[in-house]
Structure formats: structure tokens, C-alpha cells
């Protein structure tokens, strides 16, 4: 019983010592557009980030061969989620940083035929996706609102 009590105190103290900084805003003012090199790596200068898009291309198209030279559009929302899309993608992918990797946190289905000319805009509480036909207000949880252009 004493041991249990001691463990509980340690847990509570540890919980008290974690610091939370808020409010926080991770939003980027605008999307960035990056082209993958032959190995499927993309580089972002301003935010100093690089990652490989081969797994994403494979997830979207079923193979990663076409990753080289592929142009992807990336934006980060207020909550720190990354939104990625590319031409002819049917979905918008959301990611979070974890252990030095980008880990998919969701997939938002947009078009059955693929988006012709996608683009992200940063808006107050959501990411606006332009497709050339329709606009979508997105959050990390999915489509907030659909609008016709």
C-alpha cells in the first residue's frame, strides 16, 4: 500500500513538472511548393525541413516510381498539422512530427478523379484547399466546409 502511495506521489509530481506553452500558433502564412529530387527527397529552405515523399506517392498512386520530380504542396495549420497535396492526388494527407519523422495523422478524400490544380491557403481556423473547381475548408479532422467556386 505504501509502495502504491509512493508511486502515485511520484506520478503526480512528474505530471506537475511538465510545462505547457500556450497559446501557440504553428501556422505558416502560405503553402510551400517543393519538387522532389531523384531519390524522392524534398527540401524546404525557409522552415529548414526535408523529408522523403516516396511513401506518400506509393500510398496515393500505388507505386513510388513517379516520385522523382514530383511537385508537392505543403502547409502547416495553427495546431501544427502538416497538409500535403499534389496534382492528381485524390486525397489531402495530414501529418504530425514524431521522433524525427512525419507521421500520417489522416487522409481527407477530396476527389475521385484526382485534383487538377490543387493549392492551399492559410485561413484563420482552417486550411483552404483550392482545386480549380471547388474550394474546401479543411482541418486536421477533415472537410469543414465545401464551397463552389
Amino acid at each position, binding site marked *: 500500500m505504501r509502495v502504491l502511495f509512493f508511486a502515485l506521489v511520484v506520478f503526480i509530481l512528474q505530471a506537475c513538472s511538465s510545462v505547457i506553452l500556450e497559446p501557440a500558433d504553428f501556422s505558416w*502564412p502560405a503553402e510551400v*511548393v517543393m519538387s522532389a529530387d531523384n531519390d524522392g527527397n524534398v527540401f524546404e529552405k525557409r522552415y529548414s525541413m526535408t523529408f522523403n515523399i516516396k511513401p506518400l506517392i506509393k500510398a496515393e498512386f500505388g507505386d513510388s516510381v513517379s516520385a522523382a520530380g514530383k511537385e508537392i504542396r505543403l502547409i502547416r495549420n495553427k495546431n501544427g498539422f502538416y497538409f500535403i497535396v499534389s496534382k492528381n492526388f485524390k486525397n489531402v494527407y495530414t501529418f504530425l512530427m514524431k521522433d524525427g519523422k512525419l507521421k500520417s495523422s489522416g487522409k481527407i478524400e477530396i476527389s475521385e478523379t484526382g485534383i487538377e490544380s490543387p493549392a492551399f*491557403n492559410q485561413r484563420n481556423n482552417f486550411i483552404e484547399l*483550392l482545386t480549380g473547381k471547388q*474550394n474546401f475548408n479543411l482541418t486536421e479532422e477533415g472537410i469543414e466546409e465545401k464551397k463552389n467556386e
Partner: protein
Amino acid sequence: MNKLLIIFLIVFSAGLLNAQSDFEKIQNFKQKIESLNKEIESADSLSQLEAVMTKIESLKLKSEADKELLDKALYPDDYTKTFEKLDNKLNIAIQNASQISALEEEVTEAQSLILKLQQDITILTESEAKLRQENTALYNEIMRIKKNAARSKEASDSLKTLTGKLKDLILKRDAFIAGIIDSFFTTSFQKMNEFSQTDKADVIATIKSNNLLDKIKELINDNIVIIDKNLFIPEDLEEYKKEQKKFTQNWKKFGSSLVDIYASQNESKKEIYEIDFMLSEWDKKINNKIWAEVNSIFANYNIQLDQFSSGSDFESVLINYIQKEIDSSKISDNIDRVKNYSYFTEDIWEKEISEKWMPVLLRNGLLTEKQKENIDDKMDEWSDAMGGFSMTWIYIVGVVVLIAIITFWNSRRLKKKNEEQSISNEKNPV
């Protein structure tokens, strides 16, 4: 139906505008800024830069709505900084273009000046050539008459008139050449630094085609001949001296500019140095003539002095002479030494030297104030040695004595007359 279509189009196009990607907006903005930068760099006139300025203002107005987005997207700059940079660049370009434009104007002005100068010089040199012809004719006439001048009074008078005319003509030519030099100096030579190589070549060509340097040499030479041949009256010497000074001053400015222009032409440079030398010869000749005139005054009064041809010579020769006179006065007869002193001071020094030549010598820097003071001191020393006497004093004393004798003789005569009158009255009482 039509109205509906218009409304639909407006809504549709507004929708399209709204649907523009921020990324696209940013890229467009960056491209426009880049393009404006390039336009500023490539603009080569003020009007082009003014057009860029209008474009910048227009971009400012159009992009104002996206300022917040651009502020963040243009990191590390922001919207305001981006335009500040562009404006600064534009202002610098405008300043440079203004300077270039001003320089271009100056070049155009310089070119038109050269053209005008060439025309002026051609006119002036033609007139100068006529004057030189007259000059030569007059000179030959004077030389012809001079041979007979001693024999006839008529020839002598004629010589005097012609010599005066020649002097006027020479001065006129001096003024003409000075005019040409002035024309160069006051117009183009002040701007010589701004002249291009082509402009300088034009100036050289003008100088050469008008034989300007030859004319200057001829003129100096003619002036020297007049001095050498004694074709002047002594009173004119100072006028010649003034003329020489003025000419030399002009030449100094003109000549130094010419040396710059002729930097690569050794032969022409040699000509310029030759003129420098001739000018100093001209000056020396006038100075020697002035000193010769002063020498001749003493000789004409039978005062034996060593020859002098400079201020320091003049000073030492006179001081030596006066010292000798002071020394000899101690052993010679009183009246003789007073006579000598009066003759020198009153007839020669005061009438001829102090009044006529001393101002000329001082004005033209041939004698310094200090040298004059030294001579005056020596004269005072001589006066002291004479006990302050001079012929004037002797004359004054003489007149006083004469008046005293006459008064004495007169009073005695009156007294005698009165006495005779009283004796006669005593003998014949009324």
C-alpha cells in the same frame, strides 16, 4: 436575361479572384518586384525611371490588400521593407540618371561651345592677319623714315606720328590675341576637364588650323622688335610692361591647359615652352629698357655711375655714389659740395627720378620699397653731412642779405635827406 448573365459573370469572376492561391499571389508579387528591379537596372533615362516609379506605385496600391500575407511570406523582409528597398534603388538610379543627364547636357553644351569657339577664332584670326599686315607696312615705313629722321625735321615729326600709330597697332593686336586666348579660356578651357578625347582633338585641330601658337609667337616677337629697335617713347614703357603682364597672365592659364591637351604631342608641347621662354624674354627686354632709361638720365646730367640693370644694382650703385660724395665733401670746398649735393638732389633726383621713374620702378616690382628706403636713408645721411644746407638755402640767405643791404642803404639815404632839409630850414626861417 442579359442582366442575369452579367450578374453571373461578375459573381463568377469575383469567385475566381477570391479563389486565387496565396502562393500564386506571393509568387506574382515576387516576380513583379524582381521585374521592377530589372527595369530599374536597365533604365537609361529619367523618363524610363519615372515610368517604373508609376508601376511601383500601382503595385503598392494593388498589393496593399495582401500586406498581411506578404509581410509574413516575404521573410526575412516584409512588405514595407521590400518596397523601401525598391524605392531606394529607384532613387539612387534617378540620382545617377540625373547626373548622367546633366553630364550629357554639359557635353552637348561643350560641343556647341567648341563650334562657336571655332567660328570666333576664325573671325578673330582673320582680323589679326589684317592687323599684322598693317603692322609690317608701318614698321617698314618707320625704318625707312628713321634713316632720314636726323636730317629733316619733317621726317622726324613723321617718325613720331608713325611710331605712335605702330604702338596703337601693336596694342590692338595684343588685344586681339588676348581676345582669342580669352575666348578659349573663359569658355572652353574652364570646361576642359569635362571634354572628351574627341572634343580635345577638335580644340587641337582649331588651334592648329588657325596657327594660333604661331600667331602668339609672332606677336611676342613683334613686341620684342619694337623694344629692340627703340620704336617707342620712354613714357610708353610702362604701358608695354602692363601689356606684357596681362598677356603673360592669360597665357599662364591658357598654356597650362594646352599642356594638358597636348599631353601626347611632344612637338606641340615644345612650342608651348618656347612661348613661355619668349614671354620671359619680352619681359626682360622691357625691364632692361626701363633700366637703360634710368641709366641715361644720370649720364645726361654728367653723373658718372656704374651701369645698373636691376633693383639691387641700382640700390648699391647709388649708395656707393652717395657715400663717395659724403666722403669727398669732407675734403672739398664748402660751396662746391653744396653745389654738387643740390644739383644731384634737386635737378636729378627730385625732378627726374622721384617724380617720373621711381613710381614706375615700384609699380612694376623693379625696385622694392625696402631698396627705396635704403636709398632715401643714404640721401638723408648726405643731407646731414651737408649740415642741412642746400643751394636753395644759400639763395634764401642771399636774398635776405640783399634785402637787408637795400633797407639799410635806403634808411641812410632818408636820414641824410632829412638832415639836409633841417639845415636848409634853419638857414631860411619863414
